[in-house]
């Protein structure tokens, strides 16, 4: 019984990343990646459009 208790305690000690914590970390990393990539996607797509298209079409269309 004592051994089982010790093992579960050790497992708890070794549990490093909580699911909620990792969700926030991953969400923030993905959000920052999107914030970094959207302007670059616009830059890549804008030359494929006419002047009128740049103003009237959807910003990330081509």
């Amino acid at each position, binding site marked *: 019984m004592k051994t089982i208790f010790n093992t579960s305690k050790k497992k708890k*000690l070794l549990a490093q990343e909580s699911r909620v914590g*990792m969700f926030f*970390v991953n969400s923030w*990393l993905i959000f920052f990646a999107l914030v970094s990539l*959207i*302007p670059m996607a616009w830059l890549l797509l804008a030359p494929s459009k006419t002047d009128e298209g740049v103003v009237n079409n959807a910003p990330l269309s081509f």
Partner: protein
Amino acid sequence: MLAPYAFLLLAFGLLPLFMAVAEVPGPSLINPDGGWDAFRIVVQDFRFPIALKNVGGFMLYFIPMMMITVIVMALMLDVKTTKWGRYLRLAYIVPASVSGAVAVLVWWAIFEPTISPIKPVLNFFGIDSARQIWQTENLTYLIAIMAFFALAGNWILIQYGSLQNISSEIIEAARVDGCSAFQLAVKIKLPLIQKYVVYMAVLVFAGGLQIFVEPQLLNTGVYVGIASSWSFDQLSYELAFKAGDFGGASALSIILLIPSLIGALIVIFKTDMFDVKTNADKESD
């Protein structure tokens, strides 16, 4: 062994500094008698306090935004290495890989409600006209955002790289002792990369003090006159190439050098960033 470093120090450090010092006492339209009064004249220039206010305000946003975001992002990236990690790191470095002029174009488009890819977000905040954004008083944080995205990606990867230098034995020992991911980041990893953080702080400070491309391009290419003499470097540029006052421009450049030099000396003498340890030193440690 030291020759390449000595050459670089001479060619890009000492020689320009010597030329700037030699240029200061030269006569000009603003300082017809020449002499070292150039320092006093440039500090008393009516544009100097305006540039000081602008650059000070810009650095107040830019430096904390840069330091906090970069460190937090690097620590987050280091929490868990997944197969997506490399793609995320690639995504972060993309905005940093475009040149300053292109970055100005991109961020102008982002904050231009008629063509912006974040048009719905801008509309949500009641912004539907460029005039609501592109005002001289808003430039402080607009330029801070531009400069942030131009530099953050590089620094995130550099700090992530510095985290990879931490011994896996230390991390493992901390884990066995029951460190949570947060404790591991704040109490173990952060102190171990402290010298890289100080190094980054000094370079970010020096870079912020010398902000030039963003306000200059906005002023000359996007909205003419919106950021005239906005920063110290712009003032120095205008003194030299519009007023022909090379002495004043040199004096201002030397004034700008002082805080950056102090920062560099702090990194060299107050951190072990540039300590060269021989094998004998390492063994004695």
